[in-house]
């Protein structure tokens, strides 16, 4: 008898322990391949035909999630090489460029970040144009808006980390706006009203910009804060909200379709 490699592999105990079901074309098996796979079972077993079409969803939401995953992977790899201190940050990025062979991890991460902003905007655009935010999906739209803001904040906090002129001054320009926050920024309207006698409660060392930067200007404190926000704090919130977002799609009746 002729040796059949693919049959040998698919018959082995190792393979069968990983994939419980073979590639069978019966509806039952196709349903099982979704239900018995932890990643596939984010989906329902069946979806509306109109909703499964690329022409309807543009795949923008799913693609945003995929881009997020690639950013997590490339970001973790970058963390091996990067130290968030004023002494090392720039040199680590430089070393990454000069010494790591075939190093496109930083490129994948940076361009992926831009791509994610575009796909998230595109997803919102599609959901709007199909009226998919309407009841019963209103709250999921709100979660989506928060995720959109967090996506931009993720990109914004990551922008500082290379610690070059581009990074520092972009964050300086961006965070200067926080100075003008009403009541909470030291150049904002109403901040002067918050005082006890002659003592100003809101000044450049206590306002919302100071809290964001951990200092009066973009320096070591800001670098560390942005690093932690970028790598730990915001991604954690994003993951939690994404779980709710995906779960609610199912609970609100699956992908939107006409009544």
């Amino acid at each position, binding site marked *: 008898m002729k040796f059949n490699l693919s049959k040998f592999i698919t018959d082995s105990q190792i393979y069968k322990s990983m994939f419980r079901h073979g590639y069978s074309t019966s509806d039952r098996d196709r349903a099982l391949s979704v239900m018995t796979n932890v990643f596939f079972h984010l989906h329902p077993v069946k979806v509306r035909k109109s909703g499964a079409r690329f022409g309807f969803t543009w795949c923008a939401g799913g693609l945003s999630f995929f881009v997020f995953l690639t950013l997590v992977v490339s970001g973790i790899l970058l963390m091996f090489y990067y130290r968030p201190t004023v002494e090392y940050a720039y040199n680590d990025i430089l070393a990454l460029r000069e010494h790591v062979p075939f190093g496109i991890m930083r490129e994948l991460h940076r361009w992926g970040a831009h791509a994610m902003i575009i796909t998230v905007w595109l997803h919102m655009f599609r959901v709007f144009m199909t009226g998919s935010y309407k009841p019963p999906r209103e709250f999921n739209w709100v979660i989506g808006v928060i995720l959109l803001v967090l996506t931009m904040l993720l990109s914004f906090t990551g922008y500082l980390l*290379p610690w070059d002129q581009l990074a520092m001054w972009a964050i300086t320009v961006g965070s200067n706006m926080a100075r003008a926050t009403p009541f909470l920024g030291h150049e904002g309207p*109403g901040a002067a009203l918050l005082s006890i006698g002659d003592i100003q409660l809101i000044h450049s060392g206590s306002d919302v910009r100071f809290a964001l930067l951990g200092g009066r200007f973009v320096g070591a404190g800001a670098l560390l804060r942005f690093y932690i926000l970028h790598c730990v704090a915001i991604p954690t919130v994003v993951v939690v909200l994404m779980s709710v977002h995906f779960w609610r799609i199912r609970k609100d009746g699956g992908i939107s379709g006409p009544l």
Partner: protein
Amino acid sequence: MFDSFEHLIDAVSSPVTIFTFATAVFILFVTFPRQLTSKWVSLGTLFLVLAFFGIGLTDEHFRKIVSTPDNVPIVGLMFIFGYFTWFAMKKAVENDRRIEKGEPTVEQLETNDKVLVFPYLIFIEFVIALAYGAMLVIWSLWLKAPLEEPANPTVSPNPSKAPWYFLGLQEMLVYFDPWIAGVLLPTFIIIGLCAIPYIDRDPANSGFYCYKARRAVIIAYLFGFWILWILLIIMGTFLRGPNWNFFGPFEVWNVHKVVPLVNVNLSEIVFIKWLGVGLPKQWFIREWPGFAVLFLYFAIPPAVLARTALKDVYKKLEPTRYLVLVILLLVMIALPIKMYLRWAFNLKYLVAIPEFFFNI
């Protein structure tokens, strides 16, 4: 080769002409969606845009701006969103035609058919993920991530720009103080987006593309997205140079370009130019014309519209929702109004109280 064309474009380019031109194109698009998404108009528009880019790329300055690594996504974004706006509108127009004839929409024909996620949907997702992965790798091999000189707090580049997705806000700084452009308006954008499903609540016309039945909502959204967000990002990225001065697309960014600052406040116009009495000392006397204008702007339109043009909307939404809707719309429209006031009358602030940083 195209020098005269480039000079012409530079000569007519200014914030006011570009903004007005884009708004005019937008109005045409939402008024005649069927005609403008037809085959020949679409292809013609695409050809014109590509021709403009093709000619542009022969110019050294244009090429440099467009191919700056961090600007490449914006060029991509313009084409991606241009395409998908066209695509969504085309589908909407087709569904509108079907609804008019009493036929079900394209999506309604299929909505009761269910397909198995595996393999149909998983296959689509797999192909898209693969295509995206390939594109990202090619993009990464082709363009190096930028790395400039090490950060130096004593040398500030001119112009200093925020990351591109915030450049719409930075562009708004030309017309508003930071507390409005950087804090108030972004807050309103976020709140406004969140409020959409609580104002537009009718579950009919959801789950498929359509235009006529949701005209007002779609126009408001597209105007906010395209004109007040994307257009401002494009202006802020490609057309703002040193000292945040405006430059045409083919104009070299000259650091020494001098633009006279002749902006005046409303209080100066009223008390000095019209009354000829000089500015009063107390701010609450000095600024009452501005406060009056603001009060009228936010009080009269909601009341008048509720009895006239938006009568049905008022009835449908009831007072609270109606008020939220009108205020959000008024804040949105305030941005282009302030822009035109600046261009037409050099108006700097409606209310200017530098005593406690309260300028509008």
